[in-house]
């Protein structure tokens, strides 16, 4: 047991992340309204929800125009995810975008911001709010956000890949320092193994990121500081491997590769930390975009994200130790055959 408990831990954590992370439903949300603009008078339209439970729970719906509430006169659930509503829109509503809100016992409060435009010319009304006591949703679910939708689960895969890559590159950096200090070829082998495995995680990070970008931004790749940083990182370590390949002598190779590794690692870190903050970026965490904290604020995501990070990092380190053992055995068998 001693010495490999963390491998078990990584498997357990990742199983938890894969099973719970993929099976937990998204929270309910309103996603669509069948009209684009409404005018004063009798108005009927359909509201579409996602993961909602309209049929069994008799939802209440109301408009919110510039903070003023108007309750629906009739609400007829068509299915769990669709409801037909009728409003008597008063004359006095202001001309502005209007939100639609809903509540039922199981789904809690729901809102679709700026659902449609109201063609009022008024200056305000006496509110007619629905006479209900709103209670919060109690079921465990991930936040249902516009654009992100179901892809929010990728948070448990895409982000930890880069964290794992960083950890492995830091191991490689540390071993390169050891190479320069002691000239130890074993440390050089460790540095190489860490880079090899970190490139695997970089590839996984790029693939998961690319799929995510396609689903949310509509493109497989965008010119974005964060993405450029990722590309630079991969190029640097590919160059590291090429540098190693071009030097036949073991000790010289170890030393030169270590020098390049240290040089590149420090500069890469500076780029990745500073460059995205200099310019605007679509990527979360940069250029005025909400950082992680807004996702992390949700405790349901946090309960999966932190175990995912730990699990993937441990898995990465495990892969690194295996890779290292293989390369040690290879070196031994090469020595034996010489």
């Amino acid at each position, binding site marked *: 047991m001693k010495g490999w408990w963390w491998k078990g831990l990584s498997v357990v954590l990742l199983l938890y992340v894969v099973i719970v992370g993929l099976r937990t439903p998204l929270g309910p949300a309103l996603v669509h309204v069948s009209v684009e603009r409404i005018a004063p008078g009798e108005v009927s339209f359909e509201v579409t929800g996602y993961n909602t439970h309209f049929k069994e729970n008799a939802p209440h719906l109301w408009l919110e125009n510039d903070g003023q509430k108007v309750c629906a006169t009739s609400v007829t659930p068509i299915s769990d995810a669709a409801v037909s509503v009728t409003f008597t829109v008063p004359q006095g509503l202001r001309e502005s975008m209007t939100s639609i809100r809903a509540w039922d016992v199981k789904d809690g409060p729901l809102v679709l911001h700026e659902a449609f435009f109201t063609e009022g010319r008024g200056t305000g009304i006496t509110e007619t709010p629905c006479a209900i006591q709103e209670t919060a949703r109690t079921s465990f679910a991930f936040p249902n956000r516009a654009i992100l939708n179901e892809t929010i689960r990728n948070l448990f895969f895409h982000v930890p890949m880069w964290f794992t890559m960083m950890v492995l590159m830091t191991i490689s950096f540390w071993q390169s320092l050891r190479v*320069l*200090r002691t000239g130890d070829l074993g440390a050089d082998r460790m540095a190489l193994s860490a880079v090899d495995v970190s490139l695997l995680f970089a590839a996984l990070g790029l693939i998961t990121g690319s799929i995510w970008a396609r689903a949310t931004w509509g493109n497989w790749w965008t010119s974005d500081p964060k993405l450029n940083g990722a590309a630079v990182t991969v190029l*640097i370590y590919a160059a590291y491997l090429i*540098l190693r390949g071009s030097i036949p002598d073991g000790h010289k190779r170890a030393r030169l590769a270590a020098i390049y590794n240290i040089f590149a690692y420090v*500069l890469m870190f500076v780029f990745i930390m500073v*460059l995205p903050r*200099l310019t605007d970026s679509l990527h979360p965490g940069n250029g005025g975009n909400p950082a992680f904290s807004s996702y992390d604020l949700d405790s349901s995501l946090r309960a999966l994200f932190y175990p995912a990070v730990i699990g993937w990092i441990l898995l990465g380190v495990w892969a690194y130790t295996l890779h290292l053992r293989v390369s040690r055995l290879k070196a031994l068998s090469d020595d034996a055959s010489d």
Partner: protein
Amino acid sequence: MHSILVEKFARQSLRALRFNLFSAPSAVKLFFAFFAVRTMRSTEIAHLLKLEWQLDRRQKHAWGSMALYVVSTVYVCYQGVRHLSETPIWNALFWIILLFAAFNALGRSFQRENSGRQLYLYTLASPRSVVLARTIYNAITMAVLSLLSLAAYALFIGSAPLEGAQMGTFILVVMAGGVGFALVLTLISALAARAGNGIGLMAILGFPIVLPMLLSVMKASKLALDGMGWDVTGKYVIWLLLIDVITVVLAWLLFPYLWRD
């Protein structure tokens, strides 16, 4: 009395540094390092700079080849596009030319050493002086070369985008970019020369490291061409200076390991 103490302090720190870089806590070492640079063999560096200058004067073809490279590249572009007036393309093409000129010019920085002369240098000077002198010399070379490239480029490809530009800021950004390339590529050039694989390897090793610098400097020069002043472009230049400082410190720390064989 005070100056004697400072000198003694610096000397001790220098000895500690040369003895073993890794034996003291790194923060302390970095602190000492900056002290040491101030008092460190400035005459040695001056001599080495003079040596570089004399070598270049003796081999006039070196400068000639750099200038010819820039002019012929610009001329090829001129044949391809005649006059360019769109600022973004003008800007991008200029930086591509300057980047490859930098690779070409700095690639030979450590190539021209035959092993005999290198051994001789090794016995005479400390490796850190060598790399600092080389870096300074390369920075000066690139500052001149970037201005030369700009002149040739504006002459052939057209200077229309320069008309609405903040000229002072633009020239500053161009020189800062050239100097930045020089600082980053000096150590890379030494590495490639050591690996015995010339300019091809240098391009592979240097490109990803230069790329982020290139991106920010392109952006800054584009802003300067659009008539933005120092208040907008300033942060890019300061960021460039930050990379420069880190690069020089890293080269200074790492070069001794590269130099010994």
